[in-house]
């Protein structure tokens, strides 16, 4: 048994191991969050030393500001379609790769490759794909398809969804694939002996066994899509007009270009609240489902 004094030394030493992380995390993330709440209650312009307190004025303003509402509407549509399409595609490709298709490693690499590219660079590449490269097919085939998806506010969302799915389907597919491969073979064998069809095996074994992967992918894609910014900067600069201005892009414009730090902070805090509520609701629902299965 260590002596009591030695125990105290150990306690201090253990604490000194977490302390640097605690300090950095608090200063770098928690302090900004607390200050953000404070700024959100003021009409601070980012320059002056006084912080005019206006209570919940910024939050009231938000509900009547068409730019903010447009930014939310775009962000929510982007997140909704992304979560739906990306999960379905990722699962679809994972199932295909799991059925013993030839050259599996090659397909896995191809699907994952775009993930290595920074979103800001991916936006740049696709800007040129839509306006310069894909029209090359029109010249070859004599067709007249309009590939300039970023050019019209009615198609910009579709264009961005294509880019984002191209980039990240492979990432989420790897998670589904690993989960598929961890399902014990005996489950399928016994179902097979009982004469269960492909469809029944998929619905009664595969889907339930994937529950933890569903949780990770659904929450991950939703949270990831709600904070979209880098891609928009290079692909559309939030346009045409304001058609692809996400909430983070809107905060950037409001605070750093229009110098409304108070209002911008209020937008940040509202985004945090939305993110937390969505994550908690999704985790709650999905975890409960995991337990039931």
């Amino acid at each position, binding site marked *: 048994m260590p002596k009591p004094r030695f125990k105290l030394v150990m306690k201090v030493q253990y604490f000194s191991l977490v302390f640097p992380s605690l300090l950095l995390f608090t200063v*770098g993330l928690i302090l900004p969050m607390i200050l953000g709440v404070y700024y959100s209650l003021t009409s601070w312009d980012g320059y002056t030393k006084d912080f005019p307190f206006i209570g919940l004025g910024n939050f009231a303003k938000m509900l009547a500001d068409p730019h903010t509402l447009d930014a939310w509407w775009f962000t929510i549509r982007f997140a909704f379609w992304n979560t739906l399409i990306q999960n379905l595609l990722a699962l679809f490709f994972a199932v295909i790769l799991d059925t013993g298709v030839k050259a599996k490693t090659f397909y896995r690499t191809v699907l994952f*490759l775009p993930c290595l590219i920074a979103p800001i660079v991916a936006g740049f590449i*696709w800007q040129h794909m839509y306006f310069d490269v894909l029209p090359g097919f029109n010249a070859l085939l004599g067709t007249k398809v309009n590939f300039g998806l970023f050019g019209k506010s009615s198609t910009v969302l579709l264009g961005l969804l294509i880019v984002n799915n191209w980039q990240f389907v492979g990432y989420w597919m790897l998670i589904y694939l690993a989960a598929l491969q961890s399902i014990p073979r005996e489950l399928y064998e016994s179902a097979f002996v009982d004469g269960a069809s492909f469809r029944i095996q998929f619905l009664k074994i595969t889907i339930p066994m994937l529950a933890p992967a569903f949780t990770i992918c659904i929450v991950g894609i939703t949270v990831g899509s709600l904070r979209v910014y880098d891609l928009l900067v290079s692909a559309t600069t939030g346009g045409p007009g304001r058609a692809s201005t996400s909430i983070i892009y809107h905060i950037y414009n409001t605070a750093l270009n229009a110098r409304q730090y108070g209002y911008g902070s209020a937008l940040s805090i509202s985004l945090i609240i939305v993110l937390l509520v969505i994550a908690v609701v999704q985790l709650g629902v999905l975890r409960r489902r995991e337990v039931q299965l």
Partner: protein
Amino acid sequence: MIGSRIHTARDRWTAFTRKLCLQIFMIVISAALLLPIFTVINFSFKTRKELYVDNPLALPHSLYLDNYISALERLNVGTTFINTFLYTTLSVFFLAVLSGAAAWAIARNRGRFYRFTYLYFLLGILIPFQALFLPIYIVGNAFHLTNTFYGIILMYVATGLSFSIFLMTSFMSQVPVELEEAAQMDGASIYRTYFRIVLPLLKPAIATLVILQAFAIWNDYLLASLFVSKSSLKTLNVLFQQLFSTTSSNYSTAMAGVMISVVPISILFVALQRYFIKGLTAGAVKG
């Protein structure tokens, strides 16, 4: 893999056509997915004339390297590449050491304080730093961290800690307590035990952390564009965006620039691929 019955020749034939269709489908999909990457490589070797006159899908006529030379020059690679490299490696190094230490202390102390600390860190996973970029920028300004070399590293570490500690804690069960106890019996201090015994045992976890965080930092644009405006401190992505915004006409140079920024992280990926998949799936499989 789902089992299916194969009895007759007809069944075998159906299975064969199904497999063939699947294979053709995957080849078409792969071609579509590779087209943008093919374009980057293709355009990076095109002359200006080829860029504007030829069909965009046509290959260049010769191995034209001027785009790479001018990309190296215009992207100020001597500075920006080194900056990006140093921000990434130093941030990842500190993340590994700090999150390993914190995760170990949390795993070995079951008290209320450490349980609270763990939950406190987890809060950061649900609150992505992008959502807080404005107050983070304000705090960074107040502490004079903007436009400094260490300031941006500090911010990368601060914003990456939550996930790193979560990852390290999930690996901690693989570190046997017996070894640590033996070392402590021999009079080794906590620090000595951590650096000599625990940290080496965490190597696979660190490899996973390195690759996941290196990606995030190397590819980051938002934080770097906010924190750094001095040209001697800029990263590849920041300068890339400034030089080759959508209005730029000479995009074959930009495509060579894309290659320069993507190749290093791809090499890291190939080297640590094994750990990458392990890290992605640790949570998905165990739940």
